[in-house]
């Protein structure tokens, strides 16, 4: 088969240099990174392969590559790289590139490239929320109205939560389809039998809820309990806690907003679980990651892109404003006060959702398990295909 001609994309190289701090050009392809990587396999020799692809600006190869999602940035590669080329950071940069590659609107690319674009985008969304709020609830609460009257949960659902859920769903789905097109369909070669899509679906669910692959970032031969005791699982577990808390809170506000506006303090166990514990998880997780990013002691927190900061800060502020809002309701603050706290909370929450979820760092929540699922699909299909052709040979 005639190989496609190699085309180096200098713009891509420039872009990847801008969205991270990897010195990938310094790589001389020794392969130490892939050798020390606990997750890299013979078939998927990342990050070595990504280093040279990026060095040469091979855009198509990179866009169809799932491996950046399979890397969890343990940092072993960066630590051991003889040229200090930061392969771990390259994988991070490539995830940023992939987010913008799946995004057909082109918004991600701008947000990643320009710091101020992100600030402006957030301000615009916040402003939009303010305008919508003014249109729905007015700028002042009606005198003497209860909270339920001033800020009706139904209206919040109807004008805010559900539209955003639909918007995010549509965007993410279309991006994931784009990802599917680029990574699974474009590969040529093996066709994936329909059955495999279902048989492999468990991996999608399993990895979404456990982030199990994260735990494999440490391949030392210790028992799980020992790793737990020595703190080797801290990052994974905190990350998992943060993600679960987030998902719980998101489901809560979309489907059970009433619970959050209930005026009694400790009504039901499920409210405590969903609301309070998840809020604590959110706060703990975001503070933990902010500290890591500030101290820069571990490889994966050494470099912080502006989008990393924005995501964790927005998440923290969302949680914080949510807790204050909840407190103001439980402690019966004046409705007019709650009215404004509510508005502020939404002006933080919505930029976080609209900007971060489809166009920025949040999206890895979706792409990571999907990437594992896609990778499994391809592998499964390949092994099936291999088995078939072997059988065919035997028959002949």
């Amino acid at each position: 088969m005639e190989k496609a001609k190699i085309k180096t994309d200098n713009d891509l190289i420039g872009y990847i240099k801008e969205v991270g701090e990897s010195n990938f050009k310094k790589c001389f392809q020794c392969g130490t990174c892939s050798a020390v990587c606990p997750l890299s396999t013979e078939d998927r020799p990342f990050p070595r392969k990504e280093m040279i692809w990026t060095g040469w600006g091979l855009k198509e190869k990179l866009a169809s590559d799932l491996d950046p999602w399979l890397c969890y940035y343990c940092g072993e590669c960066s630590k051991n790289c003889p040229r200090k080329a930061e392969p771990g950071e390259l994988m991070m940069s490539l995830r940023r590139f992939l987010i913008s590659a799946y995004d057909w609107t082109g918004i991600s690319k701008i947000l990643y490239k320009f710091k101020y674009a992100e600030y402006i985008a957030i301000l615009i969304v916040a402003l939009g929320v303010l305008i919508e709020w003014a249109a729905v609830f007015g700028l002042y609460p009606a005198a003497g109205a209860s909270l339920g009257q001033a800020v009706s949960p139904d209206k919040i659902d109807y004008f805010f939560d559900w539209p955003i859920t639909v918007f995010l769903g549509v965007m993410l789905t279309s991006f994931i389809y784009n990802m599917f097109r680029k990574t699974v369909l474009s590969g040529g070669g093996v066709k994936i039998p329909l059955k495999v899509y279902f048989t492999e679906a468990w991996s999608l669910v399993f990895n979404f809820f456990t982030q199990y692959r994260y735990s494999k970032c440490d391949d030392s031969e210790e028992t799980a309990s020992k790793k737990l005791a020595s703190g080797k699982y801290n990052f994974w577990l905190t990350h998992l806690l943060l993600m679960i808390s987030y998902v719980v809170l998101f489901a809560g506000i979309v489907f059970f907003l009433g619970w959050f506006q209930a005026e009694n303090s400790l009504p039901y166990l499920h409210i405590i679980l969903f609301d309070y514990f998840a809020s604590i998880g959110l706060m703990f997780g975001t503070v933990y990651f902010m500290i890591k990013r500030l101290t820069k002691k571990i490889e994966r927190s050494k470099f912080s892109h502006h989008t990393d900061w924005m995501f964790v800060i927005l998440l923290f502020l969302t949680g914080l404003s949510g807790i204050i809002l909840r407190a103001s309701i439980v402690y019966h603050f004046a409705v007019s006060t709650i009215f404004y706290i509510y508005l502020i909370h939404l002006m933080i929450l919505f930029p976080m959702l609209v900007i971060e979820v489809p166009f920025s760092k949040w999206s890895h929540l979706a792409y990571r398990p999907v990437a594992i699922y896609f990778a499994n699909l391809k592998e499964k299909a390949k092994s099936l295909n291999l088995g078939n052709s072997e059988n065919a040979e035997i028959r002949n």
Partner: protein
Amino acid sequence: MDNNLGIYICSGCDIGESLNIERLVNAAKDSNKPLVCMSHEFLCGQEGINLINNDISEKKINKLVIAACSMRAKQDVFNFDPLSIHTERVNIREHVIWISPANDDNTQLLAEDYVNMGASRAKKAACPEPLIQDLNKTVLVVGGGVTGLNAALNSAKAGYDVILVEKKSYLGGFPYSKYKKWETKPPFDKNVWIKEGLDALINSVENSKKIKIYENSKIKSVSGAPGKFNIEIEAAEGGDNSGVITETAGSIIEATGWKPYDAKKLGYLGYGLTPDILTNVELEEFYSELSENGKTESFTVKRKSNGEPVKSIAFIQCAGSRDANHLPYCSTVCCMSSLKEAALIRKNNPNANVYIIYKDIRTLGEYENFYRKMQDDEGIFMVKGVVSGVSYDDKGNAVNIKVKDTLFAEDIDLDVEMLVLASGMVPNSGEVEGPAGIKLDANDATCQPASGAGAPTGASCAAANPPVGAPQINKSGILNLTYRQGKEMPELAYGFPDSNFICFPYESRRTGIYPAGAVRMPLDTVFSVDDAKGAVLKAIQCMEQTAKGRAVHPRSNDMTYPFFDLPRCTQCKRCTEECPFGAIDEDEKGTPKYNPERCRRCGVCMGACPVRIISFKNYSPDIIGSMIKSIYIPEEPTDENYRILVFACENDAYPALDILGLNKINLSSNIRVIPVRCLGSINNVWYADALSKGIDGILLLGCKFGDDYQCHFIKGSELASYRMNNLKETLTRLVLEEERVRQIQLEFTDYMKLPEIVEDFVNKVKSLGLNPYKGF
């Protein structure tokens, strides 16, 4: 010379505790009838030395036998005037008591034998009469390039007159007409115009009163020897001094540099398909042209095919290098020059992409920093791989390169507008003359013996070293020596006239002639400057030593030299053919014409001579023969009474035995070691002497030979092995097993192998039984 023999036996260093010294002294007295024979417990101490000095002045002792430690130890203490006293060191420490059981009868016999052997040698040896002469001390530098200019300037700075001969009409050499140097220091951004750097050097050479320059000139012939080379310089017509001029020089530095590998042979990499495919040298020339010879710094590199600015360019490294079918070696400079070209392209055509396809990037030492800097350039793309094909697409006017085995884990297919082939260096070490005197292409010469122009290159490269005794490849055109062994410097490999550089940098195989710079091995200008200095030191050393009648490396300061008893010569020409340094010419009849100044005193000629007319004052067939004859051969057929003679090369094998002694590792007491200057100096008569005397086996311990030989005299150990094959026929005729003679190749560091080597041979000889000639 009188034989006033004094034998001094040291009993220090445990010698006294391990041997019966009284018995040793008495045995030495009985066998050798010395004037003085005594023992002392601390011979190398002041008292011991005073004792010897007293005997020298009072009893006129002129043959000293010092039975103590190895001749390699205490050289500063046992240091008596070599011109009036022969000092024979007998090694009863390292070679006797340290490797044999103490107070054992066999150990005692071993020591007695060594003392007798030393005394026999001392009796026959005479003091050297050095050939002190008033010699010319001018350095002739051939080639006015970077190396030659530096050699000339450094020789002049050291106070020596210099003659500089350059074939072109200007100094500066190969790089002079090229574009820019690569910068050697970080941050690597000041590529200076090559001419700028060289002009200052040329200026100081031209202004030096000690340097006489011949431009447009070639060497017509070189005859004579170090200190008295006769140089015929042929100047081109029309110059100031046209015609043939004769000059005299003391030593010669060959700095003739290199030429690029013939690009016509790079057809497999697309050379010739389109003018857009150039070699690295052609690119440099193109640059010079575009810059109007340095008048302008800012220009755009344009395609030769259509004059459009270049937007993509590829470099193929090792084009025809490190390739068995072309140049099998690395030329060391191409990686740096390609990186430099890449940097210049990026500077001149900022939008151009540069692709570098390499087998390995080799940037030595600090040059690595330049590589790193270039690697970081966004427009430079490097990949390791093997180029599997280059084609030209005339529709798109593009050069297509296919690369396999890349680090992409898949093949690459790349289109570029321009392609540069980074081809290697070929030494300017002379043109090969074919059988009918036809000049062959120099590029073939690097790999091909003079077997014929049509033979394929490459396969014959490995066999480039001619067999022993065969004349060297017949090259000419550079030095045009009138030596019997060929007109040019013998080459080590691939046409480079180096010696064995592992041990001896700057050393050469023609005394007083030192190749330096890129002709010696692929070097860049920076390394060539150092190489020039090294060669200058060698050249000066040679002139000074030769004037004092002393040898140069490796037998530095040796004042002996071979004497040829010519009336008895049979004109067999073996000595003239086999001398590793071309020291012996011959007349029409084949009578050797020995040049002592060219000689390294290895004794290979002495070993070669079938009629034994070649001898040194202290080393001759007769002297060693009498040593052999002084070995006591017991007749009782017991295991202890086998006698094995070991000829040990003084350069590696003898020290290895010493180190074994230092480690106190036992060795068979059956052996008797005779140090030899080189295994090549072993004359076949010694085998006859030994075997007829009743010696049961002979072991030769010498250096490694072959392609990566370690023989200090180049061919000595190989010649010994070659001559031994002839010997074996003689042995068979005498109904002696040929296994009684064995040669082992040994490195200095192999000393731990010695017990096994010796044991193995002793057992072999024992299995053959005693020498039947014993007792005759």
